[in-house]
């Protein structure tokens, strides 16, 4: 997308690079790699979305219609894994690849070849994961959290899942090391840490979290693998192990993981709100501190996923208080965004709409998060649709909406073309409507006691499930509109100016033409 030839912009080297397929296979260019990350994650989003449509089609009516229970469990398991590891995380890494070097005035990522390697691991892992549907016994069916002993029971599909998690983990660790090194060493002269754009800050903190917890995930899946094949008993009580040990280790990874998926989203929104309010971000330093405290707190709250596993009252109280504490920095962020908008001069292009939609719905997800933190209530809603509603409010209308906002915001810089504002607005309003139709009613299903991960349900849950399924189909179709819109923008969008948004202040807008040339900032800009 970013292949623009010519040296009209005063770049010293020309933009020669291999063309055709080898350009993409061998590339070490952060923009090419970012593009590949984004297309890969969109493909995975479609695959995961297809699985979601299957789940919602089965749940459209009570009774078993199209998916037998075992296949249904495979669908839910792979939907979760693909969306988390294949869609959301790589999409943010794609944003980091494109934006971090441009926003800090660096020519490329610090480790360009490792960058290529960390991307090309992804299709391998994805192939193993999706391919596991076609091996004897089918894909893993123990939920995306693959708790043993159930996951010890599965067949080859579970092993493929374990290996693909290993590979995805390796890719994430390399990506994060690259991002940390780039941010700490390659900032333009004068750009002190406290002058970095918020998006860069959130990614720096996220990358540290990833380096901290990804090895823990790799460890726990390895323990599971040796339990399955090499006679160890880490999680098997008959051999002196403990199934709950798995949950502790998994969630020590898993809780920071949810912040890994939301902190860069905070970063994107923190870039967009000031731009379209034409006003600087309110409380920049408190935003940085809030992000850091969320990251630190996220490492000491893992057992709130396990309140029904049974632990001493003191344990439950500690994890409840720690979890509730996260609401404070999160609230500070929301207040800061509101204060940024306050007395601004706002316009409402698609990126701004998605950002406001993000804040609005993320706050609902935050409220249900606080409600889930209260142990007695959590025990009632644990493993019900309430939890499903909660985490889709933070991951779909949180992370995904922020990703959409980011794509609309930066696509003029990436492609040199404007997207269609009309279609963008349609995409926003349809997504907003169908998202709430799908997930809001799931709160009620959960409160009334419908368990998650079941292919069939009592008649009292029938009408809400039908509404939810119809909403999900609508949401799925709406995303095809997004695909059309992006292709349309790349192929025949109107030409974008260097600064299509009045209020933008970061380097990629102030210093670089649209589209950004293949090589940028070979001579670093000077920040005053």
């Amino acid at each position: 997308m970013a292949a623009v030839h010519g040296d009209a912009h005063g770049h010293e080297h020309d933009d020669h690079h291999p063309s055709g397929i080898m350009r993409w296979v061998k590339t070490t260019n952060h923009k090419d790699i970012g593009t590949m990350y984004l297309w890969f994650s969109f493909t995975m989003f479609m695959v995961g979305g297809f699985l979601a449509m299957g789940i919602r089609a089965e749940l459209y009516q009570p009774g078993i219609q199209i998916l037998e229970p075992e296949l249904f469990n495979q669908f839910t398991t792979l939907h979760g894994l693909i969306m988390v590891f294949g869609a959301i995380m790589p999409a943010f890494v794609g944003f980091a690849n494109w934006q971090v070097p441009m926003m800090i005035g660096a020519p490329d990522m610090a480790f360009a070849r490792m960058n290529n390697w960390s991307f090309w691991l992804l299709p391998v892992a994805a192939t193993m994961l999706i391919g596991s549907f076609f091996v004897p016994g089918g894909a893993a069916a123990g939920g995306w959290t693959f708790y043993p002993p159930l996951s010890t029971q599965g067949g080859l599909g579970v092993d493929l899942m374990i290996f693909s998690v290993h590979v995805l983990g390796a890719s994430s660790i390399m990506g994060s090391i690259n991002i940390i090194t780039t941010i700490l060493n390659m900032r333009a002269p004068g750009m002190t840490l406290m002058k970095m754009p918020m998006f860069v800050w959130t990614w720096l903190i996220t990358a540290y979290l990833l380096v901290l917890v990804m090895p823990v995930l790799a460890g726990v899946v390895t323990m599971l693998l040796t339990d399955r094949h090499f006679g160890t008993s880490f999680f098997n009580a008959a051999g002196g192990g403990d199934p709950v040990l798995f949950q502790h280790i998994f969630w020590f990874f898993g809780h920071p993981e949810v912040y890994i998926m939301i902190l860069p989203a905070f970063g994107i929104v923190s870039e967009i709100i000031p731009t379209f309010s034409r006003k600087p971000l309110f409380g920049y330093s408190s935003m940085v501190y809030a992000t850091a405290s969320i990251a630190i707190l996220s490492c000491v709250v893992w057992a709130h996923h396990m309140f029904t596993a049974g632990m001493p009252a003191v344990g439950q109280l500690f994890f409840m208080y720690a979890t509730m504490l996260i609401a404070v920095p999160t609230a500070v962020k929301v207040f800061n965004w509101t204060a940024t908008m306050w007395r601004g001069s706002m316009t409402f292009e698609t990126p701004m709409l998605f950002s406001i939609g993000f804040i609005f719905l993320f706050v609902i997800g935050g409220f249900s998060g606080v409600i889930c933190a209260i142990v007695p209530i959590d025990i009632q809603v644990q493993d019900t649709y309430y939890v499903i509603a909660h985490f889709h409010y933070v991951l779909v209308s949180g992370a995904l909406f922020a990703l959409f906002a980011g794509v609309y915001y930066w696509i003029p810089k990436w492609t040199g073309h404007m997207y269609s504002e009309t279609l963008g607005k349609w995409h926003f309003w349809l997504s907003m409507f169908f998202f709430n139709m799908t997930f809001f009613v799931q709160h009620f299903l959960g409160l009334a006691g419908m368990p998650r991960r079941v292919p069939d349900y009592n008649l009292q849950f029938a009408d809400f499930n039908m509404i939810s399924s119809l909403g999900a189909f609508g949401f799925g179709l709406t995303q095809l509109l997004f695909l059309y819109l992006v292709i349309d923008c790349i192929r025949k969008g109107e030409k974008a100016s260097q600064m299509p948004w009045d209020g933008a202040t970061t380097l990629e807008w102030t210093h670089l033409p649209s589209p950004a040339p293949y090589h940028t900032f070979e001579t670093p800009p000077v920040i005053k």
Partner: protein
Amino acid sequence: MRSKLVATLAGVSTLALYSSLAVGSKYNFPEPQSIIARETYDQHIALLWICLAIFIAVFGVMFYSILKHRKSVGHKAANFHHSTTVEVVWTIIPCIILVAMALPATKTIIAMKDTSSPDITIKATGYQWMWGYDYLQGEGEGISFYSKLSTPRAQIENKEPKGENYLLEVDNRVVVPVGKKVRVIITANDVLHAWSVPALGVKQDAIPGFIRDTWFTADNPGIYRGQCSELCGKDHGYMPIVVEVMAANDYAQWVAEQTKSATIKTSMHIENK
């Protein structure tokens, strides 16, 4: 004037909606039948109101700003970007609200954990895919049975119309007396399961090789239903839990019947040998 009216109407209708949601059991927790379930229910409603108030306050400000501070109405951007006082205030206020939320929950948690001196102790064991029950102590000691889904396969496959308790009915119910403290010891035989009865406010994972416990005291006679709440494989959706709470004399009668049929079964077993 008109916008004020619209805002008021919107506010009132939201409140009305939320209150109506709180009443219908379809939109809320089932009618609580134990002290723990009651406390949980009340805390949840209180939290909903607090969240709603915060929601209206925050988004009231944001939407006012969206309406008034837009470029299309000619609003010029101010240039302020921090205020330590404001930031300190809006950090402290959430802390206070959280403390208010945590206090009642803390009391309930401590009460939930107190499984001491029960009147009856029942062991529930999760199997793929049914529950086994053993009455270990108190009136009914020695009773033991399995409890399986009794919904016919034909209903699941859409060949027969589905009944009212579709997927929530079992062949043998757990029977307990009303007003007595029942301690449930929970474990599993193969994989994780979870024993859950929402109306009684209990949910506890069943962990193979380990024992966990919980308790309830049912307020009223009746039949309370729940489902396995931890993914346990293919038929996870088909292992419900049904607790029947009986008056003391009915319970005594049930115990007598169970003990008698158990004796018959045992003697038949001996004769067969």
